[in-house]
């Protein structure tokens, strides 16, 4: 399992720069917002957490279809599925998700404070948004794994993955943004939505790999 994670991280860092594209897309989404809503710094500071969350969400959706596609193209996905009797397939998917999050999700979290400065957010809001992103983006990867596994057999599954996955990530987005605002605005709570979001991440870290494993098995026979 560790070997699989290391292999996927190495591939993710090297091949095709999927990580860099994700970050650039995140940056582009954030940069477009001031043009859309106008350069009012107060307004930008107020909607900043929500914009950062939406940007991170879209950027993570962007890379999802590569999760199994590359492995399918060179045939290693079939080997991973055939090894299902040695390691449960859900565990293999979990390892792949962890590696995928480390190479695409974590960089987004790391650059989010810098983008928060662009949005004129207060330091507390930046900190809270990064913390919620850190805890919430794994959930997007785990749900997305299921979508990617369902669409792996399709020739152009990329857009379909986003369409299928979006309804399921809405709760994560709601609680993430709620927690980020809770840290800044006084009456709103921070701990409660943050813990609910962590619960969602844990929940999907179990459900996602299992469903993705079942979908991969179904697509191979």
């Amino acid at each position, binding site marked *: 399992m560790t070997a699989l994670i290391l292999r996927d991280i190495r591939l993710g860092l090297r091949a095709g720069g999927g990580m860099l594209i994700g970050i650039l897309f995140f940056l582009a989404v954030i940069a477009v917002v001031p043009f859309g809503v106008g350069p009012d710094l107060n307004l930008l500071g107020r909607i900043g957490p929500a914009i950062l969350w939406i940007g991170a969400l879209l950027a993570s959706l962007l890379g999802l279809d590569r999760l199994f596609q590359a492995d399918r193209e060179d045939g290693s996905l079939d080997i991973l599925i055939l090894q299902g009797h040695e390691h449960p397939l859900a565990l293999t998917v979990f390892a792949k998700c962890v590696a995928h999050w480390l190479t695409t999700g974590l960089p987004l979290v790391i650059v989010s404070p810098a983008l928060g400065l662009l949005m004129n957010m207060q330091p507390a809001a930046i900190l809270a948004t990064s913390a919620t992103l850190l805890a919430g983006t794994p959930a997007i990867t785990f749900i997305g794994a299921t979508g990617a596994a*369902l*669409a792996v*057999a399709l020739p152009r599954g990329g857009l*379909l993955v986003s*369409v299928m996955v979006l*309804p399921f990530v809405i709760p994560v987005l709601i609680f993430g943004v709620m927690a980020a605002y809770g840290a800044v605005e006084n009456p709103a709570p921070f701990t409660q939505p943050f813990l609910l979001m962590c619960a969602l991440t844990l929940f999907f870290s179990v*459900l996602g790999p299992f*469903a993705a494993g079942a979908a991969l098995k179904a697509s191979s026979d």
Partner: protein
Amino acid sequence: MNDTTAQARFSFTALANPTRYLSYSGKILPWLGGLSALLLIVGLYMAFTAPEDYQQGITVRIMYVHVPAAWLAMMGYMVMAVSALGTLIWRHPLADVSIKAAAPIGAAFTFLALATGSLWGKPMWGTWWVWDARLTSMFVLFLMYLGVIALQRAMDDPVKAARPVAILVLIGTVNIPIIKFSVDWWNTLHQPAAVFRMDGPTIDPSLLWPLLIMAVGFTALFFFLHMVAMRTEIWRRRIASMRRASAREQRSTARPVLAE
């Protein structure tokens, strides 16, 4: 399995034979359609003669379409979830036909619930739409229906699409309890449940009876449409396989050398 014993007891296993399903459903279909038409006519008549609400006035009549449509939207998804279990566990050959038939009907009922709710919300709440928990979760349900339909349409072979679609449907089931209890868990503009409660319904019987008749009528309508759609889908698949077979035959008779 022996054919005579299977025919003797009416079970889901017996329905696994598409031809038998077609003959059974052909018999039930006119009765179901007649029942739903009758109930809907009676229900609509009762809905229009029922007393108006003392606060909401005539707009309360929207309820007789809105509430059954919302119930049916959730029931449609549960029908799909049960069919998904049928596909994954028992590999029931008609279960994936059932999912494919139920998805557009369920999406239509969800859209009906959202649209009538929006029409009702404008005079009562003063806005077409609010992003509160009940409305948002219903909207998510609508998106999930569309996602299931999109995944089905994306694959050419319906047999291959069956298992991925079933898995997607099952994951989406987590949303159903969220919709049901959204009005209890969060403080919403949408009112809490008034009919199915532990301490009995809080609606006056003069309003409740038309509502229940409309709900039963809508349910009968759902299963009527579902059955028609399933029959259509079975025939469509038969025609497709016949076309493939005849194309293969034509090719082998036209160019016998190449076919070898």
